[in-house]
């Protein structure tokens, strides 16, 4: 087979495609970060071995199931368990003791992708003896990613790294006690997922659906422009109870948004804010 040549797209190509998808399917990607979006589409051309932009455009316009595949590929699902152990350490030490004072805890993982962070959170809550009185809502726009999350099955090859992250986050048990290894897969303890609720939710178009004491949305906003980031942060603000916590990715911030004055960052460099107004 001939090696696939990388096809680079112009800004006009990207505009055309965004317009096609909005008009034909009602999906609005116009406020996605253009540079990342362009990379997603260029990557799609490569992995699907398409020969031109015109071919991609034609398939999207005429084949709805192909369009669904495109949506899944646009949504970045790269994630890991207990990524940034320092962040989880602060959750353990600062946030979870406060959550413990509530009779009933509700957590929202917005843009949970394949669910690694939801399982990480469940482990922390179980170790704190709080999982039984918690509901973990995990949403994403990508149904294929959600199906993986629901299964609780992750590649065994990742476990060594996750185990390191676990120890660095202050974990004291044997990480392997949380999963059963079978061939190249790790099946996580179903007791962890009992309190998880998975649902599709699109941060671009959907609304607030509940109130929470903790909302986590890590490395999702980076794919949006400032306008859409502000919309989503307002959505989180509406969904967060007074004194609730908002967690973002290590290099993300609320400083450009209209909700910033209502939040106070928890001491240290981790991206955790408390709603104070």
């Amino acid at each position, binding site marked *: 087979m001939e090696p696939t040549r*990388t096809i*680079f797209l112009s*800004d006009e190509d990207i505009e055309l495609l965004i317009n096609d998808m909005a008009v034909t399917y009602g999906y609005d990607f116009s406020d996605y*970060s*253009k*540079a*990342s979006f*362009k*990379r*997603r589409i260029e*990557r799609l051309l490569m992995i699907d071995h398409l020969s031109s932009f015109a071919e991609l455009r034609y398939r999207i316009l005429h084949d709805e199931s192909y369009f669904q595949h495109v949506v899944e590929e646009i949504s*970045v699902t*790269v*994630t890991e368990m207990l990524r940034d152990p320092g962040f989880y350490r602060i959750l353990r030490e600062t946030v979870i003791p406060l959550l413990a004072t509530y009779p009933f805890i509700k957590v929202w993982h917005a843009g949970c992708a394949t669910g690694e962070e939801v399982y990480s959170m469940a482990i922390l809550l179980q170790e704190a003896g709080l999982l039984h009185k918690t509901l973990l809502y995990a949403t994403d726009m990508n149904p294929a990613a959600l199906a993986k999350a629901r299964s609780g099955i992750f590649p065994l090859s990742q476990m060594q790294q996750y185990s390191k992250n676990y120890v660095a986050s202050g974990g004291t048990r044997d990480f392997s006690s949380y999963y059963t290894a079978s061939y190249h897969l790790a099946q996580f303890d179903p007791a962890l997922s009992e309190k998880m609720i998975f649902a599709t939710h699109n941060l671009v178009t959907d609304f607030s659906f509940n109130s929470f004491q903790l909302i986590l949305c890590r*490395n999702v*906003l*980076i*794919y949006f*422009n*400032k306008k859409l*980031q502000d919309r989503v942060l307002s959505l989180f603000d509406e969904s967060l109870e007074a004194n609730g916590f908002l967690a973002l*990715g*290590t*290099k*993300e*911030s609320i400083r*450009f948004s209209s909700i910033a004055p209502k939040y106070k960052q928890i001491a240290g460099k981790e991206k955790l804010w408390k709603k104070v107004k």
Partner: protein
Amino acid sequence: MTYPASLVAIGGSAGSLQVILTLLDTINAGFSIPVLLVLHRDPQGESRLEELLSLRSHLVVKEVEDKDIVERGHLYLCPADYHVLIEEDGSFSLDYSEKEHFSRPSIDLAFRAAADVYKEKLVGILLSGANADGAAGLRYIKERKGTTVVQQPSDALVRYMPDQALQQSAADFILTGAELTHFLQRLYYVSP
């Protein structure tokens, strides 16, 4: 001969840090063109790189956060384990998608995104490294009329990366680490 630039993007991997530190030591204090540094870094553990660069540079050193705006007099360092892209409005976007050439940040991705925005006003420099990342990105800059520089392979601690770039005919200039300082002094800032 002088060259206009809105941004200088420098990519490097193994063996590039010493060249960068020397560059920062020797560059004229009047130099104020924004610099983006795309280095392959260890994603694990705390890094003192930002601090180290700050001590050696008169430029304001900043590890990129999402949506930071590119400003004059700043040196931007790509954070470990994120791709760094640039938007049309001159803001950075971070990206945590698949690695390219086993790398995140990927020099290719950063170079391409910067070239899309700055075109002929971008200067791309590729230094020492043991990885093919960056060569195609440099070529992409050249095709969009930007100015490209490759560290002379015999001068590089690890010549693989410069060699890859030369094989792709991506270089306008082939310079030693020492010559890079003089080259940078011949750039003048233009708005994007």
